[in-house]
């Protein structure tokens, strides 16, 4: 079972990973986006870490993710804010108020979260968006957290030959081909952080 502390550690690990990779995310966002993905997410996840520290009372996983999602929507300033915010908020809502959730419940909740992202952005797999990492990643959660992280990473790599059909990159048409999607890359970081935290929790 996973408690609120597990989800706090996930968000902290995600914040640390985004901080570490911010320059790479921004580099990926330079040829096909507006070169702010890394700095936007760094600001957003730093705010998430601060918000969770300032409000250490929520003893349930759901509210932790909902607070993180709300914070991202308020602070990111770019499209990844409402998208990741909706992912976490909807996942948190699906987890409800239980003090502990099973891996199966987390899997089902994340699927709902990914569904909400797809609905919000109107994207489908193959559009060269974060969904290209999130969908295979969450689908592989049934195997293991590490498998989910690998599937998301492969999903991000698979965006390289795609032509963008959503967002700013879609205006570039063929010129968007040959670049890895920054949103899919940050989605893979998020699932890698989850796998790290799950493995360290299970090793104890």
């Amino acid at each position: 079972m996973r408690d609120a502390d597990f989800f706090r550690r996930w968000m902290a690990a995600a914040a640390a990973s985004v901080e570490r990779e911010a320059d790479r995310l921004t580099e990926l966002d330079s040829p096909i986006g507006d070169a702010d993905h890394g700095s936007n997410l760094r600001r957003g996840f730093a705010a998430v870490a601060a918000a969770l520290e300032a409000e250490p009372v929520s003893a349930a996983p759901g509210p932790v993710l909902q607070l993180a999602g709300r914070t991202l929507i308020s602070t990111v300033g770019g499209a990844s804010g409402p998208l990741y915010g909706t992912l976490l908020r909807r996942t948190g809502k699906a987890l409800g108020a239980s003090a502990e959730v099973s891996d199966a419940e987390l899997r089902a909740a994340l699927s709902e979260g990914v569904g909400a992202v797809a609905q919000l952005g109107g994207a489908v797999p193959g559009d060269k968006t974060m969904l290209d990492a999130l969908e295979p990643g969450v689908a592989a959660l049934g195997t293991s957290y590490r498998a989910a992280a690998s599937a998301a990473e492969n999903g991000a790599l698979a965006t390289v030959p795609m032509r963008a059909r959503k967002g700013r990159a879609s205006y570039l048409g063929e010129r968007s081909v040959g670049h890895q999607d920054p949103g899919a890359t940050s989605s893979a970081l998020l699932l890698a952080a989850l796998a790290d935290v799950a493995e360290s929790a299970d090793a104890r």
Partner: protein
Amino acid sequence: MVGVVLVSHSARVAEAVAELARELAAGGPVAPVAAAGGTAVGGLGTSAERIVAAAREVDRGAGVALLADLGSSVLTVKALLMEDELPQGSRLLDAPFVEGAVAAVVTASTGAPLAAVEAAAAEAYTYRKT
């Protein structure tokens, strides 16, 4: 009256379009219009806080019509609507930003209900320029 919120990546775009719409609606009472452009720190982008504050500012109880320009402007308004964080009766209009804003503010200023404001703004899409 229905209130109108203009959400743009750029504070100057949102304010300029608000000013244009207000001037074209002048001649009688003008519906409340608020601009929610740029990030909270003055950069290009979208601020959820600014959008929520603008919607509350123009809410007179008859509904709030929101128009958005690009990417995160649209997505942030939709995310806020999904979570019921905007005043009751808030709606994102599917309309071109400038033309839709003028149509919405002129229509709202006649005292028309939200559905009529929405229809007027959406109709701006049907006017072809070539």
